[in-house]
């Protein structure tokens, strides 16, 4: 799975480089996020602006990651559009993840 990462102070910005997040790469996404969380990253912004499709398996990976993160950490989703945003809305993920229109917005909010 393609991705890039960038550290902004205590915040880790992960930008997914895949157009689709689905059953085939959901385990990698889960490993990536769980790995970062186990490494001690408790503020993660996941930039989904390049992703144009996400299925329930990928959503499962996100939910697994937020469960691993616990109540003190933050896993924010940024840049979701189209079907991805639709899925997040359908499943009311705004109650689980902070959602931001863009990574910049997410960073601004988290750095406050």
């Amino acid at each position, binding site marked *: 799975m393609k991705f890039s990462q960038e550290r902004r102070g205590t915040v880790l910005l992960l930008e997914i480089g895949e157009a689709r997040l689905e059953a085939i790469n959901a385990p990698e996404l889960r490993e990536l996020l769980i790995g970062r969380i186990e490494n001690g990253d408790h503020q993660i912004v996941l930039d989904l602006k390049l992703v144009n499709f996400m299925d329930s398996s990928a959503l*499962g990976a996100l*939910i697994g990651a937020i469960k691993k993160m616990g109540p003190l950490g933050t896993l924010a989703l940024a840049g979701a559009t189209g079907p991805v945003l639709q899925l997040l809305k359908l499943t009311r993920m705004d109650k*689980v993840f902070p959602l931001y229109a863009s990574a910049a917005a997410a960073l601004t909010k988290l750095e406050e």
Partner: protein
Amino acid sequence: MNIRITLAILLSIFGMMLLIIIWYQSSATYRHYQLSTEQIIIDQARNDLLSAIIGLQNDQAQIALIVSSAGSGPVSDDFLYQSADAMRRTSEALSDVGNAKLQELGAAIGRDVAPLSLYADELTTVIASGNTDAILAQSSTALDRIDLAKQRLLKIRQAILLEVGITDRTIGGVHMIRSYIVTVNDALQLDRLLTSRELEGGTFLQPQTIQQIEDRSRALQVSDRVYMDLVTLFDERIVFKLSGLSSFLQNTYLPAKAELLRALAGGRGVGAAKLVWIAAGDEAVGLINGIQTSVFDRSQAYLAQQQASAVLALKSLIGLSVGVLLIFALSLYIIEKHIVSPLEQMRLIMMDLVNGKLEPRGREKFWLQDIRTIFDALRVFRVTAGRRERLTREQLLLHAQIAEAHRRLQSDMNAAAKVQLAQMPPPGDVDQIRFSTFFAPANVLAGDTFDYFALSEGRVGLLQVDVAGHGAAAGLVSVAAHLGSRRALRSLKAEGRLADAIKKLNAYWNPEMTYFTLVAVQFDTNDGCGRMVQAGHPHPVLMRRDGSITRLGNGGLPIGVMPDAEFEEIDFPFEVGDKLFVFSDGIYENSNENREIYTEERFIQFLAENVACSTEELLHKVRGTLDAWSGVANLSDDVSLVVAERF
């Protein structure tokens, strides 16, 4: 044709050639040996023939002497017998020789032996009688017969020379000396014969003067010189004897004869002179015999030496041949034992390798380095092949085990799938609601499931579950989610809130298990309405009898994400002719070959376009649409659709 046969043929040819060469050499050498042996016999025969000729010459002179001095001279009683004896020996020796011509000549000599013996008997008898007239008459006949016999023997001698030839210088020398002896003796004996006759008759038929004798002596001297030079090449000792004879004839015999002539002319001292002359003649004969013996000894020694060298050559050749044959046999043995036999073994080992026979063979010692190397390589091939075969066997075994495990898993999965399918009711009516379904699992076990059942007081429950992912784990969670949801709906009282039942289901859902999305519906056929809870599941679509289409719900958290989540309960009308479409996301998340999603919008559009269709027709079209978009066989997610229709 194989190596063994080829080598056998080649070596047989080689061996045959070798045998032929050895045979030719041996037979040539053996022939040489035979010839050398024959040469000895022939030489003896020639010597005997020479003795016979000289004997006959001597006998002629002897007979003449006897007649001239009847009774007064020394009488030898074995003359002619010695010659006959020598002729018999010659004849016998030649009859043993392999040459037909020589045998014939031998037989011719043999035929003269008996008549000659007969003359000898007659002559001896007559001489013994002392009758002078009879002796005279008999001797005259005898001399003629002897002369004839002598001439025949000389001719035979010539014939033998022509037949045998001069084999080498030594034999040539021997022949020349023998010819010389014959000539000298002939001259001597003729001289004695003639002289005897002259003495007998008292008159000289051939008037001889001292001068003539001296001339003859000189002539002898000249001819001697020519012979001597030639004979020197042969043997110096014999030359010494020959010159001895020559000087004896010149210095003793001829002067004695001259003295006899002078005595006869003077009429005095004839008897004494005659005795001196006879004694000189006899001495000359003795010298000639001595030379003949020397020449014979010399030639026999020479021929024996020739024979010995032929025997040595024969022995050497036999030894050499045996050696060559032994080496040839040893070569055959080495080729067979150390090359051909190992090659044959190699062939068998290779055939075994080809046929997969890989049992180890005993380690054999090979003499040749190359063969050893090849056998070592073959051993390595065998070990490698054995290892490879073992690996293949293990792989096949493993593969069989995997196949068996897979078969068992598959059978378990099929059994589980049957159980799962058994959970889902067949299409049909429940109270006044007709349920039609479309279900296409992506795998044997599905993450999707649904159920509908009658509840009390005209209520009908419907649920649809979608567990994230698919396969065995999703299938098992799906079964659990199905049971949990069904229990939640069944336990719901008529006055109870559906949202509370779902909240409870969510709260008790084991957080270790995968989350799932759910739509739970409760139809009330009495009131013509329905209520539903949407937990992360796609929005159900309500198609009213008038053809209007409504997407129900505002979304909601899936079950198992947040234990304390709240759920919204949505009421909707559901009267006769209304239809509710409940479906999993698989129906609109399928991708086409351009990896393009079908999307919810397209699906709702599809429904809107087919409002007029019967449910059955619609389901048929759904399948067609799915097929057209991505192919039902290529589904990446389970697809389930339940249509509830109030009638």
